[in-house]
């Protein structure tokens, strides 16, 4: 039994401790915005925040989360989240969309730490998030746009 919070709500999951957080979120909590892409932390589609930091939920056993605070795309809020999601829509970043929850989580994670990221900062923060449609040009632009909104 793992006890932690998801998007501010207490959850007590009766699943084995080695269950990846990804599948607990999807199968048990029906929070399906977090996506499965590889299962080995190589693509970032499953990125969520754990205690405020981006984490790959596909390799995070729920047994390690006792007392932790998990934030998913469904519960994402705050000025950085609003700025990132608005920027994403404004320049139509998504193509297929499968990776974009993870991209948004990583982008928000970056902007919460660094409100004026350079291209290199963006590359470093986003390098773990694969976009198979290669929307990277727009991801980079949207993060700059979101940063400008936050500064504005």
């Amino acid at each position: 039994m793992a006890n932690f919070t998801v998007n501010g709500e207490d959850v007590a999951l009766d699943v084995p401790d080695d269950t990846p957080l990804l599948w607990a979120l999807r199968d048990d909590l029906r929070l399906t915005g977090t996506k499965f892409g590889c299962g080995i932390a190589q693509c970032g589609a499953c990125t969520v925040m754990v205690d405020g930091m981006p984490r790959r939920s596909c390799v995070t056993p729920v047994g390690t989360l006792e007392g932790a605070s998990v934030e998913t795309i469904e519960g994402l809020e705050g000025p950085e989240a609003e700025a990132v999601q608005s920027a994403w829509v404004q320049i139509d970043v998504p193509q297929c969309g499968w990776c974009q929850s993870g991209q948004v989580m990583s982008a928000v994670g970056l902007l919460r730490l660094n409100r004026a990221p350079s291209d290199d900062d963006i590359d470093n923060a986003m390098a773990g998030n694969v976009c198979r449609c290669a929307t990277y040009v727009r991801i980079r632009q949207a993060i700059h746009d979101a940063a400008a909104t936050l500064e504005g």
Partner: protein
Amino acid sequence: MTAQTRRQFLASAAGLVIGVALPLRARAQSGAAAAIGDGTIAEGGFAPNAFVRVAPDNTVTVISKHIEFGQGPYTGLATLVAEEMDADWSQMRVESAPADNDLYANLAFGIQGTGGSTAMANSWMQMRQAGAAARAMLVAAAAERWGVDASAIRVSGGTLTDGTRTASFGELAEAAAGQSVPVEPAVKNRDEFTLIGTDRPKLDSRAKSDGTAQFTMDVYRDGMETVVVRRPGVIGATVASYDDTAARAVPGVVAVHRIPQGVAVYATSTAAALKGRAALEVTWDTSEAETRSSDEIFAAFREMAEGEAIEAERTGDAAAAIAGADTVHEAEFLFPFLAHAPLEPLDAVLELRDGKAEVWMGAQFPTADAGAVTQVLGLDPADVTMNVMLAGGSFGRRAQPTAHIGVEIASIAKARGGDGAWKLVWTREDDLTGAYYRPITLHRLRAGLDSEGNIVGWENRVVNQSIIAGTPFDQGGLDRTSVEGAIEMPYALPAIAVDWVKADLPVPPLWWRSVGHTHTAYATEVFLDELLERAGRDPVQGRLDLLRPEATRDRAVLERVAEMAGWTGARRRGDRALGVALHESFQTYAAQIAEVSDAGGMPRVHRVWCAVDCGTAINPNVIRAQIEGGIGYGLGAILHNALDLGPGGEVRQRNFDTYRMLRITEMPAVEVAIVDSDADPTGIGEPGTPPIGPAVANAWRVLTGTSPRRLPFAQTGV
């Protein structure tokens, strides 16, 4: 404008469903479509279609016959309808069409399906007429209500007016349902377009930025079991025997069954299913499998290249011209198997209750998958409902002439027995080792130059599998998808011989974003670039000089990209080099220039300029996005990707740790210019991909003296 007596629409509380009678030219041509039915179809080929729904709440819903997996048809089709209706963009909605070849055939295929970059091209008139018919009926309803002539009604931004009174589409929806459906509604002239040709925000961006977009894997049904399948690591192997004792002992695992695709593990959760699968012990029968390595296949292809071939193109006598040439240049290019690797792996959900099945999947040929379910489960076709879901990418992978996912999910249901609901999930390992690859391919080229450096003869021999063989698209003989792009080049060469050697392997092939052009663009544009270099000619001017007089669109994109890149003839800019490539695919013309440096033995691509002519630009925003993405997709493949068969045929790359995806750190800046055109729209999902490989390889040769002969760069040892 004439009216049909039979009203081809349905009025309901939900509003107005407008069916539009449209000629189905492709059906008459191909004869491939299902029988049309109840005798209401006039001689000459008319059938009712249903693409537009106007609701009392003033929303206009477009029913998309094309699947949306990022290439933009939802927005594109809605744009065509909105344009002709004079709707406001904010009132547009879109829904996926059900599986129905009669209503929703791709006019280029004769059956329902998405692929070959045809979505907008085949829908161009059909969806505009659908919108124009809706507009005409709304206008007729307003005229009737206000007692004025229809010619007095104007429509703009979703509002109708006669100058004094106004009404929204929603207010008139019910009355419009009582109007006759125009058979041949007039569409706008190009100079009347207000939406087509302008940047339009995509309808699916919001839902794809906040996690609410619903994909197949997001479907959950009551009592649903999740199923994963243990598959062979050697392609074509079958289960010899298995021991499921340990698998069944995993908490949550409810059943294990052998199915034609392998051994299926059924569980109450995905995690349990995966754990159960890992605990299975399976021995495989490889007697029918591909047990050769990729290197052994290439060696076999080299021998086959000397043997019997199918003639693909002939101009003059290339062999004689090359024999009499001043110098002869030869090259052999090797292309690996490639996996499509859509980021949402293959999946499907099937619920079976009381002899009726409902299916959810990202089906690119929905009637084929629905048909497979019907057949495997022995159901009445009317009892199978297909929900075509948003899909997390495809790049060709979900366009399955064999409907193998439909077959697999139905086999899972059948093996379990009885009613229930099942979700099939492929893992990344299943995806990469599961075949349906871009075929492994060999190109052998030979060309002769005269003493002045002119090309006097060009030979190309292509060895690969046929993607089309055995599918409904098979017409026997030459499979054009094996050589497209290697034939009918835009260059005026005096003697050409292109041949195809058909290879048969027990590895199912499939079209991969841009199909044959994935290798033909590279082989031809690198080889040509080398010939121009030998002759001391400029890669841009040399190509322009070679273009046939009628290749005006090729010429225009090449001239345009040279201008964008500030081309001066210098192939180097400091420590960077420029490489050029020109390639038409799917009747769209694309030229690219890549700016590349040498980053420790691998290319670093800093910038790419692309000029593209895809006919009328319906939505430049989507066109730019597809070029950006197409370049990234092609670049990742030529830099990193090979699906290699090792000794014994074992697939070497099993996940993204060894099958590397392009990352943001490797993505160049991309500048796109769209050539103005009044021609009908052509494809845009694929044509951005072919030129990037040769453009980078041609720049790389400036830096290092060689262009890779075997892809990807990461394996070529340059």
